[in-house]
Structure formats: C-alpha cells, structure tokens
C-alpha cells in the first residue's frame, strides 16, 4: 500500500463464499455487506454499537458489524442471517421465532436471531434470566422480548433432548 492510500483490497468469506472487494478504508463491515454485496438482511439500526441490529458472526463469534471495519475482516469468515438458510430451509432458530411470534416490525429480528444462534454455542441458555442477560445487546423497540425468550428457550430445549 502506498503512503496516504485510502482504499483497501479485502478478501473475506461471506456465508461460505470468498468475496473480493476494493473499498474506501472507512467502510464498515455492515455497509460492505449491505451496499457492496447486496446482503440486506443485516440491518442498520443505531449504526453506533448500541442496538445490536447489525449483529453477524465473525469467525463464529457474534460481533457488531457497524463497529467493524470491512478491512479488518481480511481472510476471515462472516456469517449473516442469509447464511443461516443457504438452501432455503429455515434454521431452527428462525422457525422458533415464527412459531413463538418473536417479532413485530421485524427490523431487529436478523440481529436477534444471529445473537440467539451464538447464544446456543456459548451455552448461555440455562434459564430465562440467563437468556435475557446474554441477549441484552439486542434491543427490540416493539417489545417482543417475552416471545424472543420463549423462542430461544424452545430451541435450547430441543438441543438438550
């Protein structure tokens, strides 16, 4: 890179496929997903790290894509809500959100579901209280929280059977 260069080349795996991008160095992962890769399932809420609507998995761990530079994702694996249902069959967490009516307007839902999927991996679904605490980074202005907790409890219970 030449001194003062403000664009950057990035190769990142998104939902299993390698994507090459040339971006302004200021572009966040969130904007790269939505504007460059047309993956608009990931939502821009506060765009400032406060609401969780932009939650994606980076190398399997949930992060906020609005506070991650796309350039920092070189060689890394990103999973978005689109990646949960690659062949059109819904992920069990997506099915549970529908079954339990875990959303109203739906804007926060992709972030809620990405966090919920990570929550299962983290093993933080031992009680409703624990689910609430470890979902606290995802805000829902419609107030669908009781049904979101029910959906997560449902999927966590299936895993234990």
């Amino acid at each position, binding site marked *: 890179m030449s001194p003062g260069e403000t664009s950057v080349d990035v190769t990142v795996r998104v939902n299993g496929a390698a994507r090459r991008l040339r971006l302004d160095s200021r572009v966040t992962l969130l904007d790269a997903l939505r504007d460059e890769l047309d993956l608009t399932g990931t939502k821009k809420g506060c765009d400032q790290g406060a609401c969780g609507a932009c939650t994606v998995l980076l190398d399997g761990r949930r992060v906020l894509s609005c506070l991650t530079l796309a350039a920092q994702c070189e060689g890394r694996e990103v999973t978005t809500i689109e990646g949960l249902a690659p062949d059109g069959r819904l992920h069990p967490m997506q099915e549970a959100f529908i079954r339990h009516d875990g959303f109203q307007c739906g804007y926060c839902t992709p972030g809620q579901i990405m966090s919920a999927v*990570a929550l299962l991996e983290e093993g933080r679904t031992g009680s409703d209280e624990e689910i609430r605490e470890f979902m606290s980074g995802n805000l829902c202005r419609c107030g669908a929280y009781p049904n979101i907790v029910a959906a997560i409890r449902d999927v966590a219970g299936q895993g234990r059977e």
Partner: protein
Amino acid sequence: MRPFEYVRADDPAAAVALVSADPGAEYLAGGTTELDLVLKDGVLAPERLVDITRLPLRGITRADDTLRVGALVTMNELAADPTVSERVPFVSEALLAGASPQLRNMATIGGNLLQRTRCRYFRDPTVPVCNKRIPGSGCAAVRGPARMHAILGAGEHCIALHASDLCVALVALDTLVDIQGASGPRSVPLTRFYVLPGERPDVENVLQHGELITRIRIPLLPVGARSGYLKVRDRASYEFALTSAAAALLIEDGTVVRARLALGGVGTVPWRALEAEQILHGAPATGATFRAAARAALADPFTVAGTAFKVELAERSIVRILHAVSGVRP
C-alpha cells in the same frame, strides 16, 4: 469524516515505530472506542489507523501467582478463563457486567484500559466547550446537565467519568501494565497509569504517543480471599454504572486481615479507595466498620447538582458489597 489510511501491522516493533513517528497515526484494535469516535461521532480524525489485531499479543498464561494477559485478549475470553473464575472472580464479574456480549467479543483488554469517556459533551463535536477535546476551552458538563459523571478526582476543569468496569477490579488488584515504546519496554502499575484531569483533562494517562500496551499482569488473590463486584445502574443490563464497587477481603476470626476496594461510576479514573482500605485493615468485620470505610472513601467529593446523589449511592454500594463479600449480615 476525514479519509484515513488503513495499515495492517504484523510486527509489534514495526507498529510501534510507525505510530511513534507519525503524529497523525493511531492504533486500531477491537474498534469499539476508536471507530465509534472516528466514524460515528467525528471526535477523532486520524490520518492513519494501524490495525494491531493480528499482532501476537494474545493468550493468557499463569506464572506462579500472576496471570499474564495479552493486550489483544477479548473481554469475553478473559471472563471465561478458569484461573480468573477461581482466583480473582470479581474480574470476571466486572467483565460480564460491562457492555454487551457482542461488544465483549470485540473489545480487547488493552483497549478497555484506554477506552474514552462517555461524557456527552466530549462525544459531541458541536459542543465548542470541552477541555478534554479542545484544551483550555472550558467544561460544559460542570455547568450543564450532568448525571453520568465523576465525583472523585474531578474538578472545575473536567468531570468526565472513566466508565470501565474491568479496570475497577484491576486497579484493586495492583495490576501491572506492560508497555512497548520506540525506545523500549516499561511497566507501570495501573494505579499510576491514569492521570487525574487537573488543569489538563486532555492528558489521560502516562502513555507517550506511539507507546503500545502489550500485556497486563494481574496478581491473583491469596487462597481464601473472597471478592465481588457490584454495579448499580439505570437498567438491568447493558448500561454504564451510576456507581460500582469491587471488593476483595481476607477475613480471619472475624477480623479483616487484607482488604482491597475500588470504585467505578464515580471517578475520573478507576478509583482505588485507599482511605477505606486503611480503615478496613485490622478492623472487625462489622457493619460499623464497613460504614466507616464507605464514609472515608467518599470524604472529599466534587459534585454538581446532577451528580450529588452519587455520594450516598456510592457509600451504600460499598457497604453492600462489603457485606456480600464478607458474609456478615447487615
């Protein structure tokens, strides 16, 4: 937002040399402070961001009674460490009380130490008055509405709060900060790492431009000591502290043999309550002792109308965490 050059560092010495030689360069790690202030708030405008996340500054190792934590270890990784849970559990409690799970997967330990204040006047560049942002311009928070602000180590020039939970527990433990600079490495105790605002609120710590935190060293508590972290806030989760308290006690036959106490939500820096510790040392573990310690910790506050409530809230937080950790019933 000004354009910046993005540089990916792959060697610590090269990264330190690069930033040390360039006044317009800053480090980028987890991004939860830096990108917020650069991209979103427009408070910082670096010409070059040096991404240090690929440097070999990860890993948690134990050497005798010290835990060595790489600066790029994330908050969630440190919270999940078995030695932390066993020997300094209030460090894990403080970590899990901070931010959100997503942010804790991003934010690093080095970055947590260096997180910038949440003072709204600092974070809003349309406010022309802020001694931290524009040295010598004055303090809008002292005269304007203030609530999430400091009452200890504060003064007329600045009441901006250091909002870390983690650092409250770390400062109680006499944690050491290992630093790499252009002229070599050095170590600074966390208790002397931060600088009170005084007349220069823009100077927040002892780091020179380009110096990089590479590691922290956490002394483990003696076996038998108990610890706890209490955070009081406006919401049940995902909120900064109004007040918080980290306490570690070793009690033998009803007497406090060793005590460590630090406060959050009230200090311009993570606040070690040494005056309170002196009262606790050697005293009977009773409610009267705990109340006396709490009064000593808050003996000299600097309050404005919006923060006056924090004096009693902090005292009560101290009394409550000391009861909880000691097991002495109120």
